[in-house]
């Protein structure tokens, strides 16, 4: 029986959760002995000119190794200082609160903040741009010499109102997809040494190869001159893709001073320094007939980039690509503008552009349903792409591989007991219950694979003791690669999981690789491992044939016990260890890279049930039922874990989380006391329904599951809050639907009535 699809308990967890894991601050390597500790001096102002930096008081402190500023960055290549270009350390101008201005190196870790306070920076305040509306006004420009804060545009140059001319009903609304923080448990951290003309960086990252390339590029080093290692990594959610300016600066400082340098940020720094996510404003226009057919949809996106371009200019492309969601819509128009503001830069965050697309179309569907007075689930059903239309190319140019959208919707409605929920909602409304019930439905499709053409690499070696080492170019930071990859190998080779070690994160071992983001690991990295196992198996067949003096075609691998026998010949057969021995010095191993031109499109449907206390405005998520179909499941524990975490994070955006700024550009949610990061206490037990529709894009038939929960849950939960209050005439409440926001909406609705 295949181990694939079975509930294998995560083998990495005892180590990761108790003791034995090595997160970046746990590194106790001889190379890092005597490291200086790095502390960044960060701007307290959102927008200001730096008139002077006086480091003398800091330098006079005992135990201070160096205080470095932009002026010291004279040994790296010049960069065009165009709009949105992010420096390592701020030079003349700071553009967001928390921007690194100087780097303090101290002998002791705990000295850092004290010394940083002694670095005297004179700021001359500049007018501040907060929020895209202000950014679009161009009254204050972030980059002098430009004529606008808009740094990129895309999609339709002008919208065509004729698209809606034949619609019986047209609804338009502006909705906010707010800025949120990734807040991984392990904050950002880097250690660096410069020895023998070579830089080694240990980085808490999702992709060592991307970090290497960024460091090489920014510091002007040869590609072979940088090695990047990722030890155990405690979460990333997209915000640990690539090399942040702090990581590059720490590497540079190690070379500059000749000292090993290590840096770990505080939570406070993490909240303002690590890229934020989402931060889009949408104007949706949806039109169709009163029988529930949508014939035209328009999505106008304004993306807040923050102060510098990280991925902010890329995200809306994904939003546009996925704009029409699971629906077969005759006319779709999209466009975007990306705008610089004096806030923390925006980059990828769990879903990165696709949750925004789903949130927009799902809100639009609800608004349309409310306008024509039809059940929201029914309106969706009438517009879904039917199963016989796959592969389906949307009006925005995405080609969906496989999908069973109606089945997903019907399955989740059935599992949730949708009709009974509606009946309960009616009963509560009739008796004027202070706790009103809201039911939110969302359907979604997303694109996964994160640059599938770049592929992923793997190396598999069978050792002479019969054990296996798998190196993966993929980059686990909580996903469970060690378990899943070992299962894939056991399934193919019959070598038990406990004899298989999975390793990752060293650019000197696998010089090529891509990393973990965009729900790409299993479909690309897993396939590369699977293919490596297949290659090794074929090589082993030849070796076994030699050993047993038989025709390779007659060799049979018993995957129950991992031995090769000749078909029809009784006997003990040969074990893997013997074949590894026979393989000689080159070993029994394979290097693979799996790449494909095609992305995959997982899909699903969510039902959220929310109780709203209409006296206080408090919404509470009481049930969440989902179908998340990402094809065949290698290990249900891993897949369910991804769904759980995703649903929680998505629900949190709907109800709790927002990275907020005041009018002066001060972040007002820069600690976990103020940033209402969701906890288990706010969430019900999730009800997960299994559904598996394979893809033909890869030999495993799998799609990505890492972001699905987040994408489906946010609009379902938001919709449920609104739905609970629909009888009061409420059609929309922006996220997060905080108690006061809900209470205010109730008050306004009552005043209007």
């Amino acid at each position, binding site marked *: 029986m295949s181990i694939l699809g079975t509930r294998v308990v995560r083998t990495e967890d005892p180590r990761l959760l108790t003791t034995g894991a090595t997160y970046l601050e746990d590194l106790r390597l001889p190379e890092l002995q005597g490291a200086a500790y790095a502390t960044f001096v960060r701007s307290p102002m959102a927008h200001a000119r730096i008139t002077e930096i006086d480091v003398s008081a800091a330098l006079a402190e005992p135990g201070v190794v160096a205080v470095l500023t932009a002026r010291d960055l004279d040994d790296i290549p010049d960069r065009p200082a165009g709009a949105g270009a992010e420096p390592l350390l701020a030079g003349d101008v700071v553009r967001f609160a928390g921007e690194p201005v100087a780097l303090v190196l101290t002998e002791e870790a705990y000295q*850092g903040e004290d010394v940083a306070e002694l670095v005297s920076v004179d700021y001359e305040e500049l007018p501040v741009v907060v929020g895209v509306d202000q950014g679009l006004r161009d009254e204050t420009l972030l980059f002098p010499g430009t004529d606008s804060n808009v740094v990129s545009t895309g999609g339709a140059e002008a919208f065509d109102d004729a698209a809606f001319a034949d619609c019986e009903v047209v609804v338009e609304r502006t909705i906010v997809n707010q800025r949120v923080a990734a807040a991984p448990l392990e904050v950002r951290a880097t250690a660096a040494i410069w020895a023998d003309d070579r830089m080694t960086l240990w980085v808490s990252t999702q992709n060592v190869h991307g970090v290497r390339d960024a460091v090489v590029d920014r510091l002007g080093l040869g590609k072979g001159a940088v090695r990047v290692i990722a030890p155990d990594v405690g979460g990333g959610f997209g915000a640990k893709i690539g090399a942040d300016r702090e990581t590059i600066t720490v590497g540079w400082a190690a070379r500059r001073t000749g000292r090993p340098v290590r840096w770990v940020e505080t939570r406070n720094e993490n909240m303002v320094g690590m890229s934020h996510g989402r931060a889009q404003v949408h104007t949706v226009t949806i039109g169709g007939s009163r029988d529930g057919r949508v014939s035209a949809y328009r999505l106008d996106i304004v993306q807040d980039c923050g102060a510098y371009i990280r991925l902010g200019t890329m995200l809306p492309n994904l939003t546009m690509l996925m704009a029409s969601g699971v629906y077969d819509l005759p006319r779709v128009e999209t466009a975007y503008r990306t705008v610089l503001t004096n806030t923390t830069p925006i980059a990828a965050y769990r879903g990165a552009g696709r949750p925004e697309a789903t949130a927009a179309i799902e809100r639009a569907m609800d608004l349309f349903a409310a306008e024509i007075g039809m059940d929201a689930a029914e309106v969706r059903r009438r517009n879904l792409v039917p199963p016989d239309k796959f592969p389906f190319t949307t009006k925005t140019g995405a080609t969906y591989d496989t999908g069973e959208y109606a089945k997903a919707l019907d399955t989740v409605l059935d599992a949730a007991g949708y009709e009974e929920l509606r009946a309960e909602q009616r009963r509560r409304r009739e008796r004027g219950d202070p706790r009103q019930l809201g039911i939110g439905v969302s359907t979604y499709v997303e694109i996964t694979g994160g640059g599938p053409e770049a592929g992923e690499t793997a190396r598999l070696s069978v050792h002479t003791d019969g054990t296996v080492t798998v190196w993966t170019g993929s980059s686990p930071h909580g996903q469970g690669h060690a378990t899943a990859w070992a299962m894939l190998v056991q399934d193919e080779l019959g070598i038990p999981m406990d004899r298989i070690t999975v390793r990752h994160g060293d650019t000197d071992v696998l010089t090529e690789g891509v990393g973990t983001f965009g729900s790409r690991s299993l479909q690309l990295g897993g396939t590369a491992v699977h293919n490596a196992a297949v290659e090794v198996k074929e090589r082993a067949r030849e070796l076994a044939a030699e050993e047993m003096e038989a025709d390779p075609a007659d060799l049979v691998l018993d995957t129950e016990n991992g031995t090769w026998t000749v078909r029809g010949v009784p006997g003990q057969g040969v074990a893997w260890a013997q074949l590894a021995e026979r393989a000689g010095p080159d070993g029994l191993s394979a290097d693979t890279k799996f790449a494909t031109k095609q992305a995959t499109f997982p899909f699903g449907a969510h039902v959220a049930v929310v109780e709203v206390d209409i006296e206080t405005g408090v919404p509470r998520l009481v049930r969440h039922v989902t179908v998340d179909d990402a094809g065949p499941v290698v290990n249900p524990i891993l897949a369910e874990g991804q769904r759980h975490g995703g649903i929680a994070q998505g629900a949190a955006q709907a109800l709790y989380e927002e990275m907020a700024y005041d009018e002066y550009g001060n972040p007002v949610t820069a600690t976990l006391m103020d940033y209402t990061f969701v906890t288990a206490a706010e969430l019900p037990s999730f009800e997960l329904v299994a559904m598996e529709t394979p893809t033909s894009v890869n030999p495993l038939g799998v799609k990505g599951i890492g972001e699905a929960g987040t994408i489906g849950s946010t609009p379902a939960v938001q919709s449920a809050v609104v739905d609970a209050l629909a009888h009061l005439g409420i059609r929309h409440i922006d996220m997060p639907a905080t108690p006061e926001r809900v209470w205010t909406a109730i008050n306004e609705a009552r005043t209007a009535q």
Partner: protein
Amino acid sequence: MIPPKFVYRRAGSAEEALSLVAEYGDDAKLIAGGHSLLPLMKLRLAQPEVLVDIGRVRELSYIRGEADHIAIGALTRYHDLEHSELLAEELPLLAHASGRVGDPQVRHRGTIGGSIAHGDAASDVPAVVLALDGTLVVSGPSGVREIPSGEFFHGPFETALEPEELLTEIRLPRPASSSWAFQKLTSRAIDWAVVAVAVQGRSVGLVNMGSTPLRATAVERALADGAAIPDAAAQAAEGTSPFPDRNASTAYRQHLARVLTRRALEEAGSRA
């Protein structure tokens, strides 16, 4: 998020704590569970020169039934209040409210006296002690004095405690009425109250409705005059001026005070 340097002294007894505080004067700050002070220090909003740690002064951790009151040592932790059989019997309001503070980690560290001495209007226990008409026993260089809870809270993080004084005991009279309730609204379970209301009989304490914990005197007067619960509760925000913050505007807090007071009074009524 790393505090500036400070001198750390650990007191083994209340007496030693007092002498250390006398030694360092204004520079010293007492620390018990640390769940209020340490975050402020990590954000460098509080920068005491000297920390006198009284967290291990076991002699001030007790819950005792006395002839006319319950005596609680200032260093009794929330967890112990929550699980005290004596309190469950005699002062269920305090036991229940203590079990709603923060999360289990906080409740294992935070102390009743630390919360009261910190004087944060957003803390739950001070308003509970107000509603229970507690008396605070304080030791200092000039001996022991008793301060009625109604005179203890002076302003934001300001109390009647002098710099060289130590809160040692909280005395809570046995309530005349057995009806009680605690209604607390938080953003997340672990958060500070947006607003909370503590009711014991006809006494009503308000959490986070101004610069100090408050008694809802207008509600209490109305109840004494025989008003129905909804009418009395409608006056819960009378005379309050709660600070607006990210969680709630002033108007929303005042609204919540009215709703939660009504619910608390109704709940208490159901227990009478």
